[in-house]
């Protein structure tokens, strides 16, 4: 029973924190593309879509990689999901901020 509980909280915590990391990655790619023209150009994976294609693709790759790594590390370990969720909320907030035009246009 102990192992079952541990695996539930561990893998759920991994998914929750990884989602926060994915949101943060999107905010970072958005802000970096705005701040550094070379990054913006490099992120044009599709000419029809522009740099948005690269920003989102890179963020999704970071999210999936982070999720896999955290899941492997945490799946059998009991985690305090409440604390992990609060940490994820902080990451989501910074991701949200990074996608906000009045913020990323400062750079």
């Amino acid at each position, binding site marked *: 029973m102990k192992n079952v509980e541990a695996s539930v909280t561990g893998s*759920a915590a991994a*998914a929750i924190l990884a989602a926060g990391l994915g949101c943060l990655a999107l905010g970072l790619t958005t802000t970096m593309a705005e701040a550094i023209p070379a990054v913006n150009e490099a992120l044009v994976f599709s000419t029809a879509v522009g740099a*948005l294609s690269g920003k*989102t693709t890179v963020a999704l790759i970071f999210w999936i990689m982070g999720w896999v790594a955290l899941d492997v590390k945490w799946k059998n370990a009991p985690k305090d*999901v409440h604390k992990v*969720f609060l940490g994820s*909320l902080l990451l*989501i907030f910074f991701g949200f901020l990074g996608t906000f035009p009045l913020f990323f246009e400062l750079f």
Partner: protein
Amino acid sequence: MSLSFRELGAAFHGMVLGTIYLLLFSGVIFALWNLKPGWSSENATRIQVKALKIGSSIMAVATWLTVITGTYIVYPWYRAKPPEGITDLADYPRYYLLANSNLAGWHKFGMEWKEHIAWLAPILATAVAVIIVRHGSKLVAEEKIRTALIGMITIAFGVVGIAALLGAFITKAAPIH
């Protein structure tokens, strides 16, 4: 009374897929909220968990389809560059908005925010769906996880709401024909 292919595409992206997401959101929130120990019989809980798994999965798929169609089908129509010498920009919404100082904010703020923020939703919705599908009825005993899931879906709902609202206003200012 007719709709062009592009108008249909934009309507499918915003009104069909977006509406599916918004409808499922309320059902998933309600089911998660009621997934508490002792609130339902074992049989009812089993049915509720099955509905949650299906509902959250469709919600996640709808969110992905919404952002993918928006980014790779509708957005290229919106940002298409007009050929040299064109003075009527009605078929080029991005350039039409930027050419009018009273409307430019809809692109510079509205579309710039919408195109990015919308991508937060599938990340959050997928995490929620995977946790529900993976752990199912074990979540009945996991109040902290259920609270986190409700929080994440609510944030995703807010994000979709912002993107949808901006999309509606931008379409009103500069429709895709």
